Protein backbone atom coordinates (compact mmCIF):
# COMPACT_ATOMS: atom_id res chain seq x y z
CA UNK A 1 0.00 0.00 0.00
CA UNK A 2 0.96 3.66 -0.28
CA UNK A 3 1.96 5.60 2.83
CA UNK A 4 3.60 8.90 3.66
CA UNK A 5 6.87 8.12 5.41
CA UNK A 6 9.40 10.08 7.41
CA UNK A 7 12.69 9.61 5.57
CA UNK A 8 14.87 12.10 7.44
CA UNK A 9 14.90 15.70 8.63
CA UNK A 10 12.38 17.69 6.58
CA UNK A 11 12.05 14.77 4.19
CA UNK A 12 8.69 12.99 3.86
CA UNK A 13 7.84 10.86 0.85
CA UNK A 14 5.07 8.56 -0.34
CA UNK A 15 6.42 5.02 -0.34
CA UNK A 16 5.20 1.48 -0.84
CA UNK A 17 5.00 -0.27 2.54
CA UNK A 18 3.60 -3.67 3.55
CA UNK A 19 -0.13 -3.78 4.32
CA UNK A 20 -0.89 -3.80 8.06
CA UNK A 21 -1.87 -7.09 9.68
CA UNK A 22 -3.95 -8.02 12.71
CA UNK A 23 -1.25 -8.63 15.33
CA UNK A 24 -3.45 -8.81 18.42
CA UNK A 25 -6.96 -10.17 19.02
CA UNK A 26 -8.21 -6.69 19.88
CA UNK A 27 -6.85 -5.10 16.67
CA UNK A 28 -8.79 -3.94 13.69
CA UNK A 29 -7.73 -2.74 10.27
CA UNK A 30 -9.10 0.56 9.09
CA UNK A 31 -9.30 1.85 5.54
CA UNK A 32 -8.31 5.46 6.06
CA UNK A 33 -10.58 8.00 4.38
CA UNK A 34 -9.15 11.26 5.72
CA UNK A 35 -5.95 11.99 7.61
CA UNK A 36 -4.65 15.43 8.53
CA UNK A 37 -1.32 16.98 9.39
CA UNK A 38 -0.91 18.32 12.92
CA UNK A 39 1.36 21.00 14.33
CA UNK A 40 3.00 18.39 16.53
CA UNK A 41 4.11 16.50 13.39
CA UNK A 42 6.43 19.41 12.67
CA UNK A 43 8.52 18.42 15.70
CA UNK A 44 9.11 15.09 13.97
CA UNK A 45 9.94 16.73 10.66
CA UNK A 46 12.47 19.10 12.19
CA UNK A 47 14.14 16.31 14.15
CA UNK A 48 13.09 17.83 17.47
CA UNK A 49 11.85 14.40 18.52
CA UNK A 50 14.80 12.18 17.63
CA UNK A 51 13.22 8.75 17.94
CA UNK A 52 12.28 8.21 14.29
CA UNK A 53 13.48 5.65 11.78
CA UNK A 54 13.59 6.18 8.03
CA UNK A 55 10.46 4.58 6.63
CA UNK A 56 8.23 5.30 9.63
CA UNK A 57 4.66 6.08 8.56
CA UNK A 58 3.54 9.36 10.14
CA UNK A 59 0.08 10.84 10.86
CA UNK A 60 -2.15 10.50 13.92
CA UNK A 61 -5.40 12.41 13.28
CA UNK A 62 -7.75 10.39 11.09
CA UNK A 63 -11.04 8.66 10.36
CA UNK A 64 -12.11 5.86 8.07
CA UNK A 65 -13.98 2.63 7.52
CA UNK A 66 -13.44 -0.65 9.34
CA UNK A 67 -12.41 -3.46 6.98
CA UNK A 68 -11.29 -6.26 9.32
CA UNK A 69 -11.60 -6.97 13.03
CA UNK A 70 -9.78 -9.34 15.37
CA UNK A 71 -11.54 -12.00 17.43
CA UNK A 72 -11.49 -9.78 20.52
CA UNK A 73 -13.21 -6.76 18.94
CA UNK A 74 -16.87 -6.48 19.92
CA UNK A 75 -17.89 -2.86 19.32
CA UNK A 76 -16.95 -2.46 15.65
CA UNK A 77 -17.56 -4.47 12.54
CA UNK A 78 -16.50 -4.18 8.90
CA UNK A 79 -18.24 -1.29 7.20
CA UNK A 80 -18.49 0.87 10.33
CA UNK A 81 -17.40 4.48 10.01
CA UNK A 82 -15.19 5.48 12.93
CA UNK A 83 -12.96 8.26 14.13
CA UNK A 84 -9.78 7.06 15.80
CA UNK A 85 -8.26 8.89 18.74
CA UNK A 86 -4.59 9.65 18.23
CA UNK A 87 -3.85 7.92 21.56
CA UNK A 88 -4.09 4.14 21.69
CA UNK A 89 -5.72 3.05 24.94
CA UNK A 90 -6.42 -0.27 26.64
CA UNK A 91 -9.52 1.10 28.37
CA UNK A 92 -8.99 -0.98 31.52
CA UNK A 93 -5.95 0.23 33.43
CA UNK A 94 -6.34 2.64 36.37
CA UNK A 95 -5.60 5.64 34.16
CA UNK A 96 -8.15 4.69 31.51
CA UNK A 97 -10.77 3.94 34.16
CA UNK A 98 -10.16 7.40 35.57
CA UNK A 99 -10.52 9.01 32.13
CA UNK A 100 -6.84 9.94 31.94
CA UNK A 101 -6.60 8.05 28.70
CA UNK A 102 -3.38 9.47 27.29
CA UNK A 103 -1.62 8.06 30.35
CA UNK A 104 -2.67 4.49 29.54
CA UNK A 105 -0.32 1.99 31.15
CA UNK A 106 -0.52 -0.72 28.51
CA UNK A 107 0.03 0.76 25.06
CA UNK A 108 3.58 2.06 24.86
CA UNK A 109 5.70 -0.79 23.53
CA UNK A 110 8.95 1.04 24.35
CA UNK A 111 8.32 2.28 27.89
CA UNK A 112 11.96 2.62 28.89
CA UNK A 113 12.63 5.64 26.66
CA UNK A 114 10.01 7.94 28.15
CA UNK A 115 10.46 6.48 31.63
CA UNK A 116 14.06 7.68 31.53
CA UNK A 117 13.13 11.02 29.94
CA UNK A 118 10.05 11.88 32.00
CA UNK A 119 9.97 9.48 34.91
CA UNK A 120 7.01 7.52 33.53
CA UNK A 121 5.65 6.46 30.16
CA UNK A 122 2.46 7.84 28.62
CA UNK A 123 0.36 5.75 26.24
CA UNK A 124 1.18 4.96 22.63
CA UNK A 125 0.36 7.26 19.71
CA UNK A 126 -0.09 6.50 16.05
CA UNK A 127 2.82 7.66 13.91
CA UNK A 128 4.60 9.60 16.60
CA UNK A 129 8.06 8.10 17.02
CA UNK A 130 9.40 5.01 18.72
CA UNK A 131 9.42 6.80 22.05
CA UNK A 132 5.63 6.71 21.87
CA UNK A 133 5.34 3.07 20.90
CA UNK A 134 6.53 2.97 17.30
CA UNK A 135 3.05 2.44 15.89
CA UNK A 136 2.52 3.08 12.21
CA UNK A 137 0.73 6.31 11.42
CA UNK A 138 -2.43 7.18 9.52
CA UNK A 139 -1.12 8.84 6.37
CA UNK A 140 -1.61 5.51 4.64
CA UNK A 141 -4.29 3.58 2.81
CA UNK A 142 -4.75 1.25 5.76
CA UNK A 143 -3.80 1.35 9.42
CA UNK A 144 -3.86 -1.17 12.25
CA UNK A 145 -5.84 0.05 15.27
CA UNK A 146 -4.84 -1.73 18.52
CA UNK A 147 -7.42 -2.08 21.30
CA UNK A 148 -9.97 -1.04 18.71
CA UNK A 149 -12.98 -1.17 21.03
CA UNK A 150 -11.46 1.62 23.12
CA UNK A 151 -9.29 3.49 20.65
CA UNK A 152 -11.91 4.03 17.92
CA UNK A 153 -15.31 5.71 18.28
CA UNK A 154 -18.32 5.29 15.94
CA UNK A 155 -19.32 8.38 13.97
CA UNK A 156 -23.01 9.37 14.12
CA UNK A 157 -24.76 9.46 10.76
CA UNK A 158 -25.36 13.20 11.05
CA UNK A 159 -21.64 13.96 11.08
CA UNK A 160 -19.83 14.07 7.73
CA UNK A 161 -16.34 12.68 7.27
CA UNK A 162 -14.52 16.00 7.24
CA UNK A 163 -16.18 17.27 10.41
CA UNK A 164 -15.54 13.96 12.17
CA UNK A 165 -11.87 13.96 11.19
CA UNK A 166 -10.96 16.70 13.63
CA UNK A 167 -12.69 14.87 16.49
CA UNK A 168 -9.68 12.55 16.38
CA UNK A 169 -7.33 15.04 18.02
CA UNK A 170 -7.75 18.81 17.51
CA UNK A 171 -11.23 19.07 19.00
CA UNK A 172 -10.73 16.88 22.10
CA UNK A 173 -7.31 18.42 22.73
CA UNK A 174 -8.75 21.92 22.62
CA UNK A 175 -11.76 20.92 24.70
CA UNK A 176 -9.54 19.36 27.32
CA UNK A 177 -7.57 22.59 27.68
CA UNK A 178 -10.71 24.54 28.48
CA UNK A 179 -12.26 21.79 30.61
CA UNK A 180 -9.24 20.85 32.73
CA UNK A 181 -8.11 24.49 32.71
CA UNK A 182 -11.28 25.07 34.70
CA UNK A 183 -13.14 27.53 32.47
CA UNK A 184 -16.26 28.75 34.25
CA UNK A 185 -19.26 30.93 33.49
CA UNK A 186 -18.18 34.55 33.00
CA UNK A 187 -14.46 33.87 32.67
CA UNK A 188 -12.09 35.70 30.38
CA UNK A 189 -9.97 33.16 28.54
CA UNK A 190 -6.83 33.78 26.50
CA UNK A 191 -5.57 31.19 24.02
CA UNK A 192 -2.03 31.29 22.66
CA UNK A 193 -1.93 29.77 19.16
CA UNK A 194 -4.67 30.00 16.57
CA UNK A 195 -4.16 26.76 14.69
CA UNK A 196 -6.77 24.01 14.79
CA UNK A 197 -6.17 23.11 18.44
CA UNK A 198 -6.13 26.73 19.60
CA UNK A 199 -9.33 27.47 17.72
CA UNK A 200 -11.02 24.43 19.25
CA UNK A 201 -9.83 25.47 22.72
CA UNK A 202 -11.32 28.91 22.13
CA UNK A 203 -14.65 27.45 20.99
CA UNK A 204 -14.69 25.05 23.93
CA UNK A 205 -14.14 27.97 26.31
CA UNK A 206 -17.15 29.72 24.78
CA UNK A 207 -19.33 26.63 25.10
CA UNK A 208 -18.23 26.17 28.71
CA UNK A 209 -19.45 29.67 29.53
CA UNK A 210 -16.53 32.06 29.04
CA UNK A 211 -17.75 35.61 28.59
CA UNK A 212 -14.79 36.76 26.53
CA UNK A 213 -12.28 34.69 24.58
CA UNK A 214 -9.12 36.21 23.08
CA UNK A 215 -6.86 34.30 20.70
CA UNK A 216 -3.22 35.22 20.10
CA UNK A 217 -1.14 34.47 17.01
CA UNK A 218 1.09 36.18 14.47
CA UNK A 219 -0.78 35.10 11.35
CA UNK A 220 -3.65 37.37 10.44
CA UNK A 221 -5.35 34.77 8.26
CA UNK A 222 -5.66 32.39 11.21
CA UNK A 223 -6.93 35.11 13.51
CA UNK A 224 -9.47 36.16 10.87
CA UNK A 225 -10.62 32.56 10.51
CA UNK A 226 -11.18 32.17 14.26
CA UNK A 227 -12.96 35.52 14.44
CA UNK A 228 -15.18 34.61 11.54
CA UNK A 229 -15.95 31.04 12.70
CA UNK A 230 -16.51 31.73 16.40
CA UNK A 231 -16.66 35.48 17.00
CA UNK A 232 -13.64 35.47 19.30
CA UNK A 233 -11.45 38.53 19.85
CA UNK A 234 -7.96 38.49 18.37
CA UNK A 235 -4.48 39.76 19.20
CA UNK A 236 -1.68 39.72 16.64
CA UNK A 237 1.43 39.62 18.79
CA UNK A 238 3.60 40.87 15.94
CA UNK A 239 1.68 44.14 15.99
CA UNK A 240 0.32 44.50 19.52
CA UNK A 241 1.68 44.10 23.03
CA UNK A 242 -0.06 40.98 24.33
CA UNK A 243 0.31 42.00 27.96
CA UNK A 244 -1.18 45.43 27.43
CA UNK A 245 -4.01 44.07 25.31
CA UNK A 246 -4.92 41.46 27.92
CA UNK A 247 -4.84 43.95 30.78
CA UNK A 248 -7.06 46.27 28.81
CA UNK A 249 -9.49 43.45 27.98
CA UNK A 250 -9.75 42.34 31.60
CA UNK A 251 -9.94 45.61 33.50
CA UNK A 252 -6.35 45.23 34.67
CA UNK A 253 -6.78 41.72 36.14
CA UNK A 254 -5.46 39.40 33.46
CA UNK A 255 -7.28 36.39 31.99
CA UNK A 256 -8.87 33.90 34.40
CA UNK A 257 -7.71 30.97 32.29
CA UNK A 258 -4.76 30.94 29.89
CA UNK A 259 -4.47 28.09 27.40
CA UNK A 260 -1.18 27.46 25.63
CA UNK A 261 -1.66 25.76 22.24
CA UNK A 262 1.70 26.43 20.64
CA UNK A 263 4.27 23.89 21.81
CA UNK A 264 8.02 23.52 21.94
CA UNK A 265 9.00 25.42 18.82
CA UNK A 266 7.26 28.68 19.63
CA UNK A 267 8.00 31.90 17.79
CA UNK A 268 8.06 35.38 19.20
CA UNK A 269 9.38 38.83 18.56
CA UNK A 270 12.23 40.61 20.26
CA UNK A 271 15.27 39.51 22.26
CA UNK A 272 13.52 36.65 24.06
CA UNK A 273 13.11 34.77 20.79
CA UNK A 274 16.74 35.35 19.80
CA UNK A 275 17.82 34.15 23.25
CA UNK A 276 15.82 30.92 22.96
CA UNK A 277 16.97 30.31 19.39
CA UNK A 278 20.62 30.62 20.41
CA UNK A 279 20.14 28.39 23.45
CA UNK A 280 18.39 25.70 21.44
CA UNK A 281 21.02 25.81 18.66
CA UNK A 282 23.74 25.37 21.28
CA UNK A 283 21.78 22.46 22.79
CA UNK A 284 21.54 24.31 26.09
CA UNK A 285 17.74 24.19 25.94
CA UNK A 286 15.51 21.53 24.38
CA UNK A 287 12.23 23.40 23.99
CA UNK A 288 11.26 27.03 23.43
CA UNK A 289 8.55 27.76 26.02
CA UNK A 290 7.84 31.31 24.93
CA UNK A 291 4.06 31.07 24.98
CA UNK A 292 4.09 29.25 28.34
CA UNK A 293 6.15 32.02 29.89
CA UNK A 294 3.80 34.62 28.48
CA UNK A 295 0.71 32.77 29.67
CA UNK A 296 2.06 32.48 33.22
CA UNK A 297 3.16 36.10 33.30
CA UNK A 298 -0.15 37.47 32.04
CA UNK A 299 -2.56 35.18 33.89
CA UNK A 300 -4.53 36.86 36.69
CA UNK A 301 -3.60 36.15 40.32
CA UNK A 302 -5.01 32.80 41.35
CA UNK A 303 -5.78 31.92 37.74
CA UNK A 304 -5.18 28.79 35.74
CA UNK A 305 -2.75 27.97 32.93
CA UNK A 306 -3.16 24.88 30.80
CA UNK A 307 -0.32 23.65 28.58
CA UNK A 308 -1.72 21.91 25.49
CA UNK A 309 1.28 22.36 23.19
CA UNK A 310 3.68 19.44 22.91
CA UNK A 311 6.94 19.73 24.85
CA UNK A 312 9.71 17.17 24.88
CA UNK A 313 12.23 17.95 27.57
CA UNK A 314 13.83 20.76 29.50
CA UNK A 315 13.16 24.47 29.22
CA UNK A 316 15.00 27.53 30.37
CA UNK A 317 13.83 30.66 32.18
CA UNK A 318 10.67 29.07 33.49
CA UNK A 319 8.84 31.76 35.52
CA UNK A 320 8.51 29.78 38.72
CA UNK A 321 8.40 32.96 40.78
CA UNK A 322 5.32 34.23 38.97
CA UNK A 323 3.67 30.83 39.26
CA UNK A 324 4.26 30.61 42.99
CA UNK A 325 3.71 34.19 44.04
CA UNK A 326 0.56 34.67 41.95
CA UNK A 327 -0.90 31.43 43.25
CA UNK A 328 -1.44 29.93 39.82
CA UNK A 329 -2.59 26.46 38.92
CA UNK A 330 -0.57 25.09 36.01
CA UNK A 331 -1.59 21.87 34.37
CA UNK A 332 -0.84 20.09 31.12
CA UNK A 333 -1.66 16.88 29.31
CA UNK A 334 -1.72 15.06 26.06
CA UNK A 335 -5.31 14.63 25.03
CA UNK A 336 -7.59 12.30 27.00
CA UNK A 337 -9.60 11.93 23.81
CA UNK A 338 -11.89 9.03 24.65
CA UNK A 339 -13.24 11.07 27.56
CA UNK A 340 -14.62 13.70 25.20
CA UNK A 341 -14.99 12.40 21.64
CA UNK A 342 -18.53 10.90 21.85
CA UNK A 343 -19.84 14.13 23.44
CA UNK A 344 -17.98 16.24 20.89
CA UNK A 345 -19.38 14.27 17.96
CA UNK A 346 -22.87 14.98 19.34
CA UNK A 347 -22.03 18.68 19.54
CA UNK A 348 -20.72 18.59 15.97
CA UNK A 349 -23.93 16.86 14.88
CA UNK A 350 -26.02 19.53 16.58
CA UNK A 351 -24.12 22.28 14.78
CA UNK A 352 -22.77 24.07 17.83
CA UNK A 353 -19.23 22.93 17.11
CA UNK A 354 -17.97 23.62 13.58
CA UNK A 355 -14.71 21.99 12.48
CA UNK A 356 -14.65 21.50 8.71
CA UNK A 357 -13.37 25.05 8.02
CA UNK A 358 -10.01 23.91 9.41
CA UNK A 359 -9.44 21.80 6.29
CA UNK A 360 -8.10 24.59 4.14
CA UNK A 361 -6.15 22.30 1.79
CA UNK A 362 -7.58 18.93 0.82
CA UNK A 363 -5.44 16.80 -1.47
CA UNK A 364 -4.60 13.19 -2.34
CA UNK A 365 -1.96 11.37 -0.32
CA UNK A 366 0.35 11.50 -3.33
CA UNK A 367 0.74 15.23 -2.57
CA UNK A 368 1.62 14.59 1.06
CA UNK A 369 5.03 16.25 0.91
CA UNK A 370 3.47 19.39 -0.57
CA UNK A 371 0.80 19.32 2.13
CA UNK A 372 3.43 19.39 4.86
CA UNK A 373 5.39 22.10 3.07
CA UNK A 374 2.32 24.36 2.85
CA UNK A 375 1.50 23.68 6.49
CA UNK A 376 5.00 24.16 7.80
CA UNK A 377 5.65 27.39 5.94
CA UNK A 378 2.09 28.66 6.50
CA UNK A 379 1.78 29.26 2.78
CA UNK A 380 -1.45 29.97 0.94
CA UNK A 381 -3.24 30.62 4.26
CA UNK A 382 -2.91 26.97 5.22
CA UNK A 383 -4.46 25.95 8.54
CA UNK A 384 -4.56 22.20 7.92
CA UNK A 385 -3.63 20.02 4.95
CA UNK A 386 -5.92 16.99 4.76
CA UNK A 387 -5.12 13.88 2.77
CA UNK A 388 -8.04 12.11 1.12
CA UNK A 389 -7.43 8.40 0.50
Amino acid sequence: MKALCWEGINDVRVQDVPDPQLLNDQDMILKVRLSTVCGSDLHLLTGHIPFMQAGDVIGHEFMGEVVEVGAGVTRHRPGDRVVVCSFIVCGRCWYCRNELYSLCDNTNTNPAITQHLWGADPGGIFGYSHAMGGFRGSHAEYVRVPFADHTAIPIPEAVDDMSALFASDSVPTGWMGADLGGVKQGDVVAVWGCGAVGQMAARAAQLLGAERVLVIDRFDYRLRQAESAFGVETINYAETSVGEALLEATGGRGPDVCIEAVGCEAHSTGPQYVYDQVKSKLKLEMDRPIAVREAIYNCRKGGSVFVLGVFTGLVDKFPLGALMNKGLTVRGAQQHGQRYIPMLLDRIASGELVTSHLATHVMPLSEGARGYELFKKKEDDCVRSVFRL
Partner: protein
Amino acid sequence: MNTAGKALLAAGVATAVAVVRRRRRTPQDQSADRWLAVTVYRSPEEVQSSLPDDLARWRDQVELRIQPATGDKGTELRVKPTGEVPAHELRLALRRAKAVLEAGEVVRADTAPTHPGPMGKVLQLVTNRAGGGGRL
Protein backbone atom coordinates in the same frame (compact mmCIF):
# COMPACT_ATOMS: atom_id res chain seq x y z
CA MET B 1 25.46 15.52 12.12
CA ASN B 2 21.90 16.84 12.30
CA THR B 3 19.92 17.64 15.43
CA ALA B 4 18.20 14.26 15.51
CA GLY B 5 21.47 12.46 15.04
CA LYS B 6 23.12 14.31 17.89
CA ALA B 7 20.20 13.70 20.21
CA LEU B 8 20.03 10.04 19.28
CA LEU B 9 23.75 9.67 19.69
CA ALA B 10 23.48 11.29 23.12
CA ALA B 11 20.63 8.93 24.04
CA GLY B 12 22.66 5.97 22.79
CA VAL B 13 25.73 7.02 24.74
CA ALA B 14 23.65 7.52 27.88
CA THR B 15 22.13 4.08 27.46
CA ALA B 16 25.53 2.50 26.85
CA VAL B 17 26.97 4.22 29.93
CA ALA B 18 24.03 2.96 31.98
CA VAL B 19 24.57 -0.59 30.71
CA VAL B 20 28.31 -0.49 31.42
CA ARG B 21 27.72 0.91 34.89
CA ARG B 22 25.13 -1.80 35.55
CA ARG B 23 27.53 -4.51 34.40
CA ARG B 24 30.37 -3.16 36.54
CA ARG B 25 28.32 -3.40 39.69
CA THR B 26 28.86 -6.34 41.93
CA PRO B 27 25.81 -8.34 42.97
CA GLN B 28 26.02 -6.63 46.36
CA ASP B 29 25.79 -3.22 44.68
CA GLN B 30 22.68 -4.19 42.80
CA SER B 31 20.47 -3.83 45.82
CA ALA B 32 19.58 -7.49 45.76
CA ASP B 33 16.92 -6.78 48.33
CA ARG B 34 15.14 -4.37 46.07
CA TRP B 35 11.65 -5.27 44.91
CA LEU B 36 10.52 -4.64 41.34
CA ALA B 37 6.84 -3.76 41.28
CA VAL B 38 3.87 -2.88 39.13
CA THR B 39 0.38 -1.94 40.22
CA VAL B 40 -2.35 -3.91 38.50
CA TYR B 41 -5.87 -2.52 38.39
CA ARG B 42 -7.41 -5.81 39.50
CA SER B 43 -8.25 -7.23 42.90
CA PRO B 44 -5.58 -9.22 44.79
CA GLU B 45 -7.76 -12.32 44.44
CA GLU B 46 -7.88 -11.99 40.66
CA VAL B 47 -4.14 -11.44 40.45
CA GLN B 48 -3.44 -14.39 42.74
CA SER B 49 -5.74 -16.78 40.89
CA SER B 50 -4.66 -15.95 37.36
CA LEU B 51 -1.02 -15.03 37.42
CA PRO B 52 0.03 -14.87 33.74
CA ASP B 53 2.59 -17.32 32.38
CA ASP B 54 5.05 -14.50 31.67
CA LEU B 55 5.54 -14.11 35.39
CA ALA B 56 4.55 -17.56 36.64
CA ARG B 57 7.49 -19.16 34.83
CA TRP B 58 9.90 -17.33 37.15
CA ARG B 59 8.00 -18.45 40.24
CA ASP B 60 10.82 -20.69 41.53
CA GLN B 61 13.45 -18.02 41.16
CA VAL B 62 11.72 -15.04 42.70
CA GLU B 63 10.03 -14.06 45.88
CA LEU B 64 6.56 -12.88 44.96
CA ARG B 65 4.32 -10.59 46.96
CA ILE B 66 0.74 -9.62 46.13
CA GLN B 67 -0.87 -6.91 48.22
CA PRO B 68 -3.64 -4.31 47.88
CA ALA B 69 -2.55 -0.91 46.56
CA THR B 70 -3.49 2.21 48.46
CA GLY B 71 -6.49 4.27 47.41
CA ASP B 72 -8.30 1.52 45.52
CA LYS B 73 -5.67 1.54 42.83
CA GLY B 74 -5.70 -2.23 42.51
CA THR B 75 -2.98 -4.64 43.51
CA GLU B 76 0.74 -4.22 43.97
CA LEU B 77 2.56 -7.09 42.34
CA ARG B 78 6.15 -7.30 43.61
CA VAL B 79 9.00 -9.63 42.80
CA LYS B 80 12.52 -9.98 44.15
CA PRO B 81 14.98 -12.43 42.62
CA THR B 82 16.20 -15.25 44.81
CA GLY B 83 18.35 -16.70 42.03
CA GLU B 84 20.18 -15.45 38.95
CA VAL B 85 17.32 -13.71 37.19
CA PRO B 86 18.22 -10.65 35.12
CA ALA B 87 16.30 -7.55 36.20
CA HIS B 88 15.61 -6.88 32.52
CA GLU B 89 13.68 -10.16 32.26
CA LEU B 90 11.75 -9.47 35.44
CA ARG B 91 10.71 -5.99 34.34
CA LEU B 92 9.54 -7.43 31.06
CA ALA B 93 7.63 -10.20 32.84
CA LEU B 94 5.97 -7.77 35.25
CA ARG B 95 4.87 -5.44 32.48
CA ARG B 96 3.53 -8.28 30.38
CA ALA B 97 1.71 -9.78 33.35
CA LYS B 98 0.10 -6.43 34.14
CA ALA B 99 -1.00 -5.99 30.51
CA VAL B 100 -2.53 -9.47 30.36
CA LEU B 101 -4.33 -9.04 33.69
CA GLU B 102 -5.69 -5.61 32.82
CA ALA B 103 -6.15 -5.56 29.06
CA GLY B 104 -6.27 -9.25 28.19
CA GLU B 105 -3.18 -9.22 25.99
CA VAL B 106 0.17 -7.54 25.40
CA VAL B 107 0.00 -5.09 22.54
CA ARG B 108 2.51 -5.89 19.83
CA ALA B 109 4.59 -3.27 18.08
CA ASP B 110 4.04 -2.74 14.38
CA THR B 111 6.60 -4.18 12.02
CA ALA B 112 9.75 -2.11 11.77
CA PRO B 113 10.48 -0.02 8.67
CA THR B 114 12.31 -1.84 5.89
CA HIS B 115 15.07 0.78 5.58
CA PRO B 116 15.60 2.43 8.99
CA GLY B 117 18.93 3.99 8.05
CA PRO B 118 22.05 4.12 10.26
CA MET B 119 20.45 6.21 13.00
CA GLY B 120 17.33 4.07 12.84
CA LYS B 121 19.44 0.95 13.39
CA VAL B 122 20.97 2.55 16.47
CA LEU B 123 17.47 3.38 17.67
CA GLN B 124 16.41 -0.24 17.08
CA LEU B 125 19.17 -1.36 19.45
CA VAL B 126 17.60 0.87 22.09
CA THR B 127 14.00 -0.15 21.42
CA ASN B 128 14.86 -3.85 21.31
CA ARG B 129 15.65 -3.60 25.02
CA ALA B 130 13.13 -0.92 25.92
CA GLY B 131 10.45 -3.40 27.01
CA GLY B 132 12.60 -4.61 29.88
CA GLY B 133 14.36 -1.36 30.71
CA GLY B 134 13.17 1.81 32.34
CA ARG B 135 12.04 2.50 35.86
CA LEU B 136 10.38 -0.25 37.86
